[in-house]
Structure formats: structure tokens, C-alpha cells
């Protein structure tokens, strides 16, 4: 088993169909396979043990994913937003490697013996190889992808995805050649994000045209959607938020006649954003996809019918599903408490997942699965009686105040309900009496006014006194990473320092 089979099948069945569109560049599935085989021959001749990529999305991205598979080496896309020292430290962990990059990012790298640099254009212009590399390694345990996790909580870990994990994911969630000839998907997540990789694999297996948009901007996205008659799109919540804001602020007509399906994931979707998006695009089927790098992406799906049923329902139990991430996809999901006991419906604990697509493995740390194959996601949440999963933040983000576990999410939801509050993050700060206490970093709307006492009273009235932020600090903006994940670690450090200084 090898994920290169996905491309072999697409090229066999629909070789002439356009696979990738990037600006003026177009590659058919047959051409994509030809490039991947050529690059695989180059990789094999190089003796490299890894194929790394430091670049924005371009046709070289799908070529690199499949070339690595044909050549039997792990594909390692790197985050181009990291600093030069961070990048060089990661590159040192994947030697000897062929590294595909461009003139701009090349300058960030310090040359060393274990790294053969090749420019993206040269990588796409390698001499055509024969079919002799077409028989790839069949070992299902071979590593297909190695992804460095974003490291929002410390030193980046290298998550390992094997061919069997990714192939199980694709075969379990996508029907071969499901796309019509006219269909296209716009992919806006960067190549180093698991959603960027699974989008390439899913689209190839569905034989769907991929339209690449390397730098997200609401106007450019809307324009690409129209000019390419795009039927499908994937966005992280912040991107959908910016599109909705742009349409509401500019008065531009939300006309996307070809768009049928819009999937989102990679972070928490604000309720107001999804409700507004459903009003703006009533013909579109929305899908919330929840997944992790360690699970080969999506493990739970809230589908278009779920969205419509929830939005139209007067039953609060159905209505609230608009805030859920849906039901288990091709995996099993259960919730356990801190002692490992499986919890029933509505009881919050840690989310565990099991299935063939779940790798749960890091380089040098090894497998994190328990004896029965369950992976602790480190996400907290609960299931409702019908199996809908509601997430409640990261386990690491829970505030433990005097032995009581407090989820920052519930306090944030209350504060966000205040009309003046634009954004908020609640974190733990050290506290002499309680061990930890709640602190809130609040961003107000441009013309919004709210006092600390007023916000504290709001939480006291809606929740209870233990939830009241002991410190409330106003900010111009909160720090996010590029896929819209809030950087709580940064906020935690800043607030701890600030609160300690104020007390001194």
C-alpha cells in the first residue's frame, strides 16, 4: 500500500482532467503523475532520506507529495513563517534531505552537507523519467508524511503519518472520481498544514481540480471562486470570518453561483460567523471538519443537513449543534475522565479517538496510543445523546482554580456576548491562594466601551463567582498563528507578567 496509488488511479481514469490550477499554470492528472515520477527518479538518485518543502502552495506541492511516495521517502513540508534559526533546527532533523524552495526562502537556510537545495522551478523541470520508478514501496508501515506540529506549547514534535493511515483516511471518506468534470476546490491552507495535505489527497482521489491561492485575502478568494467557477472550498474559521466581514462592510453581492460545498476546520468557528455565512450563501452546504495532524485530518463531520437542521430548529438541543463539530467520521470517538473512565452523554472530559487513520505517533517519542489503540487528542469535550461532539478547548488550557477545573471557553462565550467585546481569551495566571486564577485579555470593538467591573459582573451573573476573571486586561488585538489558532501560551506569559508587575 502506497498513497501514490491515489495518483495512479486518477491519471488512469481521468488523465486529461485538470488537476492543479495556479495562476496561469495548469497541470492535468497525467502531467502531475509525470512530474511526480520524474521527481521521484531524481530523489532516488540523490540518496536523500526525506523530501522537504519550504514554499507556499504551487503545483510543486502536489508533485512533491506524490514524488516522495513514489520514491519511498517521507514528505516534510516546513512552515515558512518560522524564523531562520527555527527552520534550520528543523532541517537538521531531516538530513539527508532534498529541499524544494524558492529564491526568497532559500535565504533563510544555512547550507550544510545533509541538505540538497533545489529551486521550485528546477524541481518542476526535471527530465522525464521512464516508468521504472512506478513500482513504489508496498510497505504500509512506511512513513508517508512527517509534519512538525506548530509548537504553540513548546519544542515542535514531529508527527508521523504512515501510508496506511493516509490511505485508510482517503478510502474511508472519499468516493473515487466523485467529482464532476466542472468541479473545482479552492485550497487556502498552507502546504505544511495537515488540511493542505489531505486536500491534495482527497481532491486527487475525487479527480477534482485544485485551484491554489497561496496568499489568502477575501477579495482574491472571491475573485478566484468566480473566475474558476469553484464548486468546493475549504477555509479556516478566521478566513470565513474575514470573507463575511468583507461582504458586509463593502456591500458586495455574495454571488458565488458555482459554490455548492464549503468546509471549514482548524479552529473554533464563532457562532455569529457561521450563522451569517449561512444567510449570505443559502445555496451552499456547510461542513465542519474536526481533525488533528495525528489523525490524518478529519475525524468528525457536521454536514450540510446538520447545519440546516440546527439553524432551523427551535429545540435548543438541536439548535446548539451549530456549535458542535458533528459526529465521528471513519473512526470511533469516546470521552474519558482524568482517571480514564469512559463518560456518558453530556459529561465533559478528554476526547479519545481510534481507527486505522489515527497514527498518534511522533518521531523519537513513539506511539501515544493506549493498549486498545485509543489516542488522547488532548482536546476536551463531550458527546450529546446522538453522538454529536462538542469541543471545549485544549486540556492544557484548562484553568485549575483551587482544585476546580474551569474551561476558558465557557467564560469567553459569556464575555463575547457583551456588545462591546470583539475578541477575548481567558487563561490561567498564578495565584497564591488558589494555585491558579482566571485572567482575561479583552479586545473591544473600535467604538465599544466596557469596564472591568461590568465584565466581571456579567460572568458572575451568567456563570458563578469562581469563573469571574480576577484580572481583565484590554488589548488592541490577540495573537494568532497563521491558521487562526489563538496563541494562549503567549497570552498566558504576558498576563502573568503584567498582573505580577501590577501587584508589586
Amino acid at each position, binding site marked *: *500500500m502506497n498513497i501514490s*496509488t491515489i495518483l*495512479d*488511479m486518477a491519471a*488512469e*481514469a481521468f488523465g486529461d482532467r485538470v488537476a492543479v490550477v495556479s495562476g496561469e499554470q495548469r497541470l492535468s492528472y497525467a502531467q502531475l503523475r509525470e512530474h511526480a515520477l520524474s521527481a521521484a527518479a531524481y530523489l532516488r538518485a540523490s540518496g536523500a532520506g526525506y523530501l522537504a518543502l519550504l514554499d507556499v502552495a504551487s503545483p510543486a506541492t502536489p508533485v512533491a507529495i506524490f514524488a516522495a511516495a513514489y520514491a519511498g521517502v517521507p514528505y516534510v513540508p516546513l512552515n515558512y513563517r518560522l524564523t531562520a534559526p527555527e527552520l534550520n533546527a528543523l532541517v537538521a532533523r531531516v538530513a539527508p534531505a532534498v529541499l524544494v524552495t524558492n529564491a526568497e526562502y532559500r535565504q533563510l537556510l544555512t547550507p550544510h552537507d545533509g541538505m540538497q537545495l533545489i529551486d521550485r522551478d528546477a524541481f518542476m523541470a526535471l527530465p522525464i523519467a521512464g516508468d521504472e520508478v512506478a*513500482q513504489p514501496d*508496498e510497505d*504500509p508501515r512506511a512513513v508517508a508524511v512527517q509534519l512538525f506540529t506548530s509548537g504553540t506549547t513548546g519544542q515542535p514534535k514531529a508527527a508521523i503519518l504512515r*501510508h*496506511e493511515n493516509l*490511505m*485508510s483516511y482517503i*478510502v*474511508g*471518506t*472519499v*468516493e*473515487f*472520481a*466523485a467529482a464532476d468534470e466542472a468541479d473545482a*476546490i479552492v485550497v487556502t491552507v498552507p502546504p505544511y498544514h495537515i488540511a493542505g495535505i489531505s*486536500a491534495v489527497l*482527497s*481532491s486527487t482521489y*475525487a479527480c*477534482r481540480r485544485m485551484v491554489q491561492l497561496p496568499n489568502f485575502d477575501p477579495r482574491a478568494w472571491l475573485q478566484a471562486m468566480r473566475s474558476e467557477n469553484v464548486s*468546493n472550498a*475549504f477555509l479556516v474559521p478566521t478566513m470565513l470570518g474575514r470573507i463575511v466581514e468583507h461582504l458586509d462592510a463593502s456591500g458586495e453581492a455574495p454571488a458565488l453561483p458555482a459554490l455548492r*460545498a464549503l*468546509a471549514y*476546520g482548524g479552529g473554533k468557528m464563532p457562532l455569529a460567523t457561521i450563522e451569517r455565512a449561512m444567510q449570505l450563501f443559502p445555496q451552499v452546504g456547510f*461542513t465542519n*471538519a474536526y*481533525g488533528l495532524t495525528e489523525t490524518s*485530518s*478529519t475525524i468528525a*463531520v457536521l*454536514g450540510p443537513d446538520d447545519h440546516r437542521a440546527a439553524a432551523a430548529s427551535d429545540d435548543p438541543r438541536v439548535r446548539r449543534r451549530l456549535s458542535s463539530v458533528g*459526529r465521528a*467520521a*471513519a473512526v470511533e470517538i469516546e470521552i474519558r475522565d482524568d482517571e480514564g473512565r469512559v463518560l456518558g452523554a453530556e459529561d465533559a472530559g478528554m476526547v479519545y479517538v481510534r481507527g*486505522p487513520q489515527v497514527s498518534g505517533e511522533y518521531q523519537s517519542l513513539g506511539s501515544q496510543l493506549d493498549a486498545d489503540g485509543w489516542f488522547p487528542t488532548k482536546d476536551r469535550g463531550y458527546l450529546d445523546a446522538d453522538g454529536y461532539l462538542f469541543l471545549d478547548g485544549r486540556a492544557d488550557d484548562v484553568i485549575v482554580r483551587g482544585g476546580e477545573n474551569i474551561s476558558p471557553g465557557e467564560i469567553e462565550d459569556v464575555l463575547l456576548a457583551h456588545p462591546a467585546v470583539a475578541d477575548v481569551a481567558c487563561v490561567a495566571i498564578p495565584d497564591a491562594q488558589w494555585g491558579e486564577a482566571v485572567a482575561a485579555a479583552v479586545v473591544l470593538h473600535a467604538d465599544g466601551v466596557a469596564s472591568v467591573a461590568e465584565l466581571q459582573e456579567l460572568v458572575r451573573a451568567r456563570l458563578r463567582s469562581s469563573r469571574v476573571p480576577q484580572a481583565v486586561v484590554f488589548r488592541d488585538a490577540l495573537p494568532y498563528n497563521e491558521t487562526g489558532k489563538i496563541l494562549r501560551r503567549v497570552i498566558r506569559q504576558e498576563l502573568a507578567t503584567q498582573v505580577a508587575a501590577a501587584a508589586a
Partner: protein
Amino acid sequence: MATALKPGSRFKSAVCDTQVMVVKAPAGEHELCCGGVAMLAPTASGEGALDANFASGTLIGKRYVNEDESLELLCTKGGQGSLSLGATPLDVKQAKQLPSSD
């Protein structure tokens, strides 16, 4: 020739272009055939004649199952032969709604 069928393992037809990947399989050893002739490992070579009773063909991307669906194969390349477990023909699995996120 009976073989253990492990999820992920691949086989090719000895008599046509058909190739399959095992999605799931019952335990034990089984004789997987295409065109009436035992299938081969992807790198092996063999020959035989297509049995006219097993010549209705395979289609790329289709899933093939036995009666209780304990065996499921994904056809990765189509051909003239048809699939069987021993002498029992496999059927095309009816497409179900998959939990796709795209």
C-alpha cells in the same frame, strides 16, 4: 493458491489489467481470483487464460464485496476479468454516503 488477505495489500490479475487493494478481509487464507485465475502479488508475474465465466470486467474505483461484506476490495485498475473468492463471484458494493469533509 490460498493467501492471507491483509488490509492494504495489493494484488494484480494474472490474466488481465485488473489491480485491487484489500480494504478489509476475513481472517484466514483465501483464494482471491480474477478472470477465474488466482491473483498475484503486484511484483510477481504469471499467466493463464481468462475464464469466460469470470469475464464481466472490473471498474477502477469500484469496491467489490462478498455476500456478508466481510471482504472488501478496492479496484485500483480495471480489466476484463471479474473478481471472485474461490468460485464465488464478488459484487460491486453499493455506494454509500461517505463522511467526506470536502
